[in-house]
């Protein structure tokens, strides 16, 4: 089932990184009036070499043009791509953050992952949906209120209080929404370095017999590599089997075997959610 999703992604002509480069060029031209390879690299926090490599591919595909002075600009297709991606980004962020109540930074992260992959049809439907939700229609208000109650205290938008950017939502029908952030591309480009706040629970917090799913593994190269090699990977389920006689280390079950690990190290393994017992095998 995930295989099929991947295949779909493969058919999409624009890769994530390509989308970032295109948007960077568009924004640089809007703000500074010109864009060179080095400007793109600087904006995306990558080396000049790697920016150059990606841009070369984009040039080959006719999305990016370069004049004799080595200034970059987007072709018509490139501009269309940039607009589409930026538009979808805004749509997705609105859906995730304003309607569903996903925290802003998570919403931005996730948007970043999918913005370039959303088909035109989905984007159109999404725009229509958001327009409906943001409208004065009584059913939309009721829907939002019901959702707010259902979603509970985790929702950042109290029921009855429509998305804070109602005007933005109302203007969604336009094909060219205002860009989300003036330097949106830079922010998303530097995202891997800007880690999310620690999830509330780590492996060290679990009691004997409790289990959880690994969300993230911190630590420096060698240590993390060791964790990874031992099967402590994202999505794996761990269960605490017992604690050593002197209170530390702990014995955990992962991928069907047992591993001893100190609590201080277990702290760098963040868990996503708790799952019922007996799943740690």
């Amino acid at each position, binding site marked *: 089932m995930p295989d099929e999703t991947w295949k779909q992604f493969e058919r999409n002509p624009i890769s994530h990184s390509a989308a970032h480069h295109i948007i960077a060029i568009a924004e640089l031209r809007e703000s500074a009036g010109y864009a060179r390879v080095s400007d793109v690299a600087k904006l995306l926090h990558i080396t000049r070499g790697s920016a150059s490599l990606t841009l070369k591919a984009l040039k080959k595909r006719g999305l990016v043009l370069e004049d004799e002075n080595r200034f970059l600009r987007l072709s018509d297709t490139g501009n269309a791509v940039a607009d589409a991606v930026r538009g979808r980004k805004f749509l997705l962020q609105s859906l995730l953050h304003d309607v569903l109540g996903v925290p802003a930074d998570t919403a931005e992260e996730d948007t970043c992952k999918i913005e370039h992959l959303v088909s035109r049809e989905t984007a159109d439907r999404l725009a229509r949906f958001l327009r409906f939700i943001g409208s004065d229609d009584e059913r939309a208000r009721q829907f939002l209120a019901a959702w707010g109650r259902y979603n509970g205290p985790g929702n950042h938008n109290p029921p009855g209080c429509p998305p804070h950017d109602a005007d933005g939502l109302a203007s969604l029908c336009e094909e060219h929404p205002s860009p989300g952030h003036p330097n949106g591309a830079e922010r998303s480009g530097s995202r891997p370095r800007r880690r999310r706040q620690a999830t509330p629970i780590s492996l060290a917090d679990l009691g004997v017999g409790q289990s959880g799913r690994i969300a993230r593994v911190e630590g420096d190269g060698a240590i993390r590599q060791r964790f990874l090699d031992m099967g402590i*990977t994202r999505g794996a389920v761990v269960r605490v089997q017992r604690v050593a006689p002197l209170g530390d280390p702990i014995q955990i079950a992962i991928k069907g075997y047992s591993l001893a690990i100190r609590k201080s190290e277990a702290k760098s393994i963040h868990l996503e959610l708790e799952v019922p017992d007996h799943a740690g095998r």
Partner: protein
Amino acid sequence: MPGVETTTRPARAAIAGNPNSGKTSLFNALTGSIHCVGNYPGVTVERNEGLARCDGRTLLMVDLPGTYSLTAYSAEEVVARNFLIEEKPDVVVDVVDASNLERNLYLVVQLMEMEVPLVIALNMVDVARRHGKTIDIQKMSQLLGVPVVATVGNKGHGKGALLGACAKVADGSDASHVQRVTYGHPLDEHVHALADLIADDQGLCRMHRPRWVAIKLIEKDPQVAETVARVADDSEVIIQAAESAIHAIETHSGHSVQSIVAEGRYGFAAGIVRLCARAPAVERRRVTDRIDSIVCHRLLGLIILAGVVYALFGAVFKIADEWAWLFGKSPSEWVEWFFEAAAAGIGGLEASHPMLRSLLADGVIGGVGGVLGFVPLIFVMFVFVAVLEDTGYVARVAFVLDRALRAFGLQGRSILAMIVSGGLGGGGCAVPGVMATRTMRDEKDRLITMMVAPIMNCGAKLPVYLMLIAAFFPTAQAKVMFLLWAVSWVMALIAALILRRFVIRGEQTPFVMELPSYHVPTVRGVLRHSWQRTWMYIRKAGTIILAISLVMWALMYFPRMDAGSYDAQVAALDPGSDSHAEELAAIEAERSEAQLRQSIAGRIGTALLPLSQLADFDWRDNVALVGGFAAKEVIIGTLGVAYSMGDVASQESRSLVDRLRADEEWSPLRAAAMLIFVMVYAPCMCTLAVIRRESGSWKWTIFSTAYSTTLAFVLAVLVYNVGGALGLGT
């Protein structure tokens, strides 16, 4: 063409696998006998080779170190990986624990990435079956494109089929084709693109498979990146392309490339498991869990640990007592045996070549014979340690003790190093112990462990302990041995604490260790394991110890003094008197002692007397202890030489134990001081050589000698004087 090759040299098979996958027992079952034990070039990871025969074909099996992965982060992994790259074995057997399939497949995936000619030995299928797991071997073989053979290593099942599969792969007659590993989007595309780029590079492709280089570059493997920079014609382009791929993957996923790659591999492994293996809804891996709940219990765990070690010593001495006919008198039996065998030769030498006779009787028999006399006991000790190791209890010891060790500035990996050095009560060796510190990433932790691991009671110290205990504490052998075990740990911990506080300061590093399922060890496996180690001990006695014994003998034999006055005394005796024999003996003893005293060794020993007197060591002890710098076994040998030389007049051959016991100058207290000194003082030369190599600095090598000898001396003086003041052992 393959036919020609088989006649010229045997095909080579490398055996890879996770630790605890039953790799060693399978290797033993396949080869039957060790062909060659050595080290991998440049490093001191042990390398075992053996020959396996199958249908008239011979395969040279090379046992690679057990690893979970093939990164550049630990010595074992680098060794295994470099062997595969540089020596290009004709076939690689990956031993996979069928009861722990998913984790073991992680290494399989990495071997598939390297595109080596692979055969999978699906080991311990009996255990998996007991757990209620069924594995579709045919399907697995199909999906991986690798021949898969079910084996039970410790019983030798599946041996023939495995060798057959190996032979087929080695001569290229196997039809299966290793499948390409898929990691999923977007990693696959990046690996593919990068591999295409690398494939254009002639130099690089001669050494490595492009896809492997691509995945390793994306994984940020420092060693491969270095190779690319060195070898590739257009390394900058490749490195830049890799960087941009890394960037693209990290931006796309929001996670580090290392975790994406590891997840890709584990994803592949999980897919294979899902398609080929069926496990019961409720796991049956209960036995291990139940034993663990007792052995690692908060209270019971520590009590059981102490009990196990105490029982070990008790049993060893009990068995040794049963073997008194072999053990108690064994050094003398060796002497007798030797004299009987070479009676004619040596008997004739007595008069004509006194020096040669002394060389053979005192140097060879006194030195080596004394060491060999302990073989039975050492063997029994090795058997017990092998049982503890093979069952999986050693990992629990590390688990139980980690917290305590951490308080002293050590860590889990240090426990393994200490246990290898003899921390489970003897039978270890500090050389592999120091080498075991390689798995520790933090330099400071490593140094401290290296400095204190030699304090553990290694196999070479045991004979000294056993001899002194037999001579002076015959009624409480197991208790004293247990005490020595406890003291060695206390000393090592205190030394570690002091080092961590004052010499090597800093933070501590992580501890991640597999706790393998318990196994019932096989008699064959245990005996084989113990015999290998005992054989190494015997070999050492025949080589290094023999050489040093001869040197020590020469130091004690030369220069010869002018014996004229003693000859005159002998001549003056009345041969007819009743007391003639006694008087003759007295003169002879006096002469030998005078001779020894003025020999080179005697002078060294005497020169050290002002210091050593503080601990009641006489010049003979000094000589023996100086010899112990070379190897601890030498102590017993040298004492044997020293005392037998002082004893030449007495024709009855007495064991060193009896001699010391009869010596009025020896007391239990002096023995105790000696025991503690031998325990703590300078590591032997072999260990120092390894410390030098592992620490990369003469400073630490010299420091380890200086600090331990100083500490040992202070302790010995303390034991002797405080003990004396309390009126103990006089």
